[in-house]
């Protein structure tokens, strides 16, 4: 009686490895599959392409790094680029939306067109209003209004009124 523990021939080994119920047709198909796989591998040899570049004998440290982005590294670079873009955008927005630090002043008429009293009264540039020039304001006043305004100014700074 032959022991099942020690198959001696190749056919016995194959029989043990073969699932139950396989007939001759299936075995023929299996052999054909093996032969065609060998044939395909022989006709189309492997092309290592990228792998030669990355890991072959001529690979450089830079090419070895190709395709080796870690998730943390990728996230770091994405967040860094996003941060730079955000900072640039925000800075541009702030610069463009900032109010003009030197707004246009109302043009002062030449001194030869202004009454001498009003011209003498003109305050230094630093004290002038940024919206309405006193000279323009005074030139538009009627006589009673001008008198009242001069009284008011005399009370405020009597030494600066020459008349």
């Amino acid at each position, binding site marked *: 009686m032959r022991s099942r523990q020690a198959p001696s021939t190749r056919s016995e080994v194959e029989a043990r*490895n073969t*699932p*139950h*119920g*396989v007939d001759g*047709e*299936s075995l023929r*198909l*299996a052999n*054909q*599959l*093996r032969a*065609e*796989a060998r044939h*395909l*591998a022989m*006709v*189309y040899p*492997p*092309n*290592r*392409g*990228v*792998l030669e570049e*990355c*890991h*072959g004998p001529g690979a450089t440290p830079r090419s070895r790094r190709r*395709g*080796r982005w870690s998730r943390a590294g990728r996230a770091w670079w994405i967040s860094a680029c996003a941060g730079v873009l955000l900072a640039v955008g925000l800075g541009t927005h702030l610069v463009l939306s900032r109010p003009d630090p030197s707004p246009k002043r109302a043009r002062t008429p030449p001194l030869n067109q202004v009454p001498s009293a009003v011209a003498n009264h003109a305050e230094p540039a630093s004290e002038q209003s940024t919206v309405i020039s006193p000279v323009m304001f005074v030139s538009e006043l009627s006589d009673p209004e001008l008198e009242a305004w001069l009284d008011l100014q005399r009370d405020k700074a009597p030494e600066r009124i020459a008349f």
Partner: protein
Amino acid sequence: MANLDIEQVIEDYFPRIHRAALVMCGNPWDADDLAQETFLVLAQQRGRFRGQSQLFTYLYGILLNLDRRERRRHGTRRRALRLLQDETPRDGAVQPAADMAVEVSEWKESLWSRVAQLPNAQRETLVLRFSEQLRYEEIAAVLQCPLGTVKSRIFNGLQSLRHILQSESQDLHTAPAHPCEDLTRAI
């Protein structure tokens, strides 16, 4: 086992992985890409391989995962293309390049093109068994399934293959010839 020598691994296992990729993809270009990507994934994840299984088992696992992912993408693209094809006239259909004709006809004649029509589980088992010559225990380790499942998948896979071949031979005898098809090359 973080200090894996990738160059040596490529040298040892690339032909085997490429052969498996070739019978799974059906054309040398996709097979090259798939095999290379397998080793790139290994290089990226070399720290994950702990040496608990054999290295080629681990590599086949990566290969099969990548192949499943590609098939899913391809299926999505093909469904989208089919939708487009239904909406556009067929007169301007794109013909394959002339240099692809030989490879395509050779693949169509191959028995592995019929294996490609089988369900994933049967197809992967047949590839590992008859192209890669793995033992049942090794196939079970790659596919992470019991030994009996491997045997039944091989049996059912071969049966399905026979049915496909029988139906093709019947179709060849009964179906009318299409004017654009070279019937001498069809099985």
